[in-house]
């Protein structure tokens, strides 16, 4: 039994361990399990990995003529890629291993960000952001990059302009919006969801959790709700001038004002509200 435990521990340790493929170690530092990290990488890629050790390790390949600046102590560090006048546009590849309970604020211009089990704020001007795993809270923003957020977290805030925004996994409170980008939501455990776009289509697949509250708002994009057979909620769909398409044949609408469709599915106490200016609203079986 003891041997088995040691074996499991060794496997876990190697799974958690760093990879030489990440590039040479640039910095390694003892760090508080709840410390804060500030990271700036203009171009290239950033990979963030949460681990259960009280330390941070930075690996990677620096752009030519660029250097890693690094300052701070056990509770907080500030680091990033500093280039020459042309260095900012040269791609660097940075991998940061950090304590699971820590927080990071990462900012990039065009560098893509990938994070596993990390919490904090993630901003990229044009890079894509892909986050997964368990986090205490996440705020992810991009101007026109795409966001793929597959998270288990109590709080998620996501923004992009015309990039694609995908919310999946098991977030609880979600506030997500795009300007022109498509917004896809496949997250069955959301308890309070607010999904907004100006001209991008919003697609929601699944069924609202018991007691959840959803609010969808769009100007000219469509809002498409593909509901599973078990969906149970009170729906209020209203559009100023867009069509409302009811794909359910067995729904009997409740008396409603013009350009509004109200109906209940099942006997759940979830509430789903959809509002558009001229975008179509579609509700249909999954």
């Amino acid at each position, binding site marked *: 039994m003891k041997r088995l435990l040691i074996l499991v521990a060794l496997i876990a340790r190697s799974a958690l361990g760093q990879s030489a493929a990440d590039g040479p170690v640039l910095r390694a530092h003892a760090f508080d399990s709840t410390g804060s990290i500030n990271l700036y990488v203009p171009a290239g890629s950033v990979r963030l990995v949460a681990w259960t050790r009280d330390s941070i390790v930075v690996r990677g390949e620096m752009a030519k003529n660029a250097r890693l600046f690094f300052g701070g102590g056990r509770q907080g560090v500030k680091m990033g890629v500093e280039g020459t006048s042309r260095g900012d546009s040269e791609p660097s590849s940075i991998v940061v291993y950090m304590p699971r309970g820590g927080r990071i604020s990462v900012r990039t211009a065009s560098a893509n960000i990938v994070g596993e089990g990390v919490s904090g704020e993630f901003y990229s001007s044009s890079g894509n952001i892909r986050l997964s795993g368990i986090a205490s809270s996440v705020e992810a*923003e991009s101007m026109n990059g795409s966001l793929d957020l597959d998270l288990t977290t109590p709080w998620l805030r996501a923004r992009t*302009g*015309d990039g694609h925004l995908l919310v999946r996994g098991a977030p609880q409170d979600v506030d997500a*919006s795009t300007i022109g980008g498509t917004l896809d939501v496949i997250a069955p455990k959301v308890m309070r969801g607010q999904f*907004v776009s*100006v*001209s991008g289509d919003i697609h929601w697949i699944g069924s609202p959790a018991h007691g959840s509250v959803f609010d969808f708002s769009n*100007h000219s994009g469509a809002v498409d709700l593909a509901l599973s057979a078990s969906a149970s909620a009170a729906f209020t769909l209203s559009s100023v001038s867009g069509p409302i398409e009811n794909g359910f044949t067995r729904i009997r609408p409740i008396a409603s004002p013009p350009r509004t469709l109200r109906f209940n599915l099942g006997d759940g106490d979830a509430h789903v509200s959809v509002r*558009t200016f001229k975008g179509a609203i579609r509700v249909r079986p999954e």
Partner: protein
Amino acid sequence: MIEPMTHLTEDERQAAADGTLPADRRALVDAHLAACDECAADVARIAEFMKRTRESTASAPAGAPSLDELWSPIRARIEATKVVALDTAGPSTSTRPFLWLVAAGVAAALVLTTFALRARPRDSQTSVATQVEADSTMLRAVADSTRAYEAEAQILLDRLEIQRATMRPEAKAAIDRNLRTVDVAIAELKDAIARDPRNPALRQLLATSYRQKVELLKRANAG
């Protein structure tokens, strides 16, 4: 088994004092406390401290200031998120009740969004002049509220203008593209409100679009 002379760990003393000891440890810790005066005294001291703490915080902190004056700025912030007050209790002229639909407010005001029945009874007791007055009041309110958003957006646009010189061309293009999308939406909503000033859904959508614009500009400035 905990020997009397090995003393309890800090974890055990604290948990014994606040009652959070796991059930399977309780009997052993109690037995040790019965036999060890030093640990028992320390646990009692922690428990006494916790009791005093609870007593002293049972009421508001001494000298708590009056909080009445905070309501006014709170109300101002709430109103600022609404574009205009969304209740229709004002100059309604309909003889039929408005039909209300509950809609969660977008990011800010969580309010009852109402959809007025479009077919206002022209034969109601209220004069056409009163209706015109009501509409112009609502339009003035919309104008006042949107001015606040536009002022905030303008500050952010001015700041952005300074940053443009150092921005990458593709970043500038993305910002401009997104701004155009939001501005088109805002213009369409303003037109629609001018035609139908008392439609609260339009005002709600306008507020949402303005918030999108302000957030977009903040994001652009952050980059």
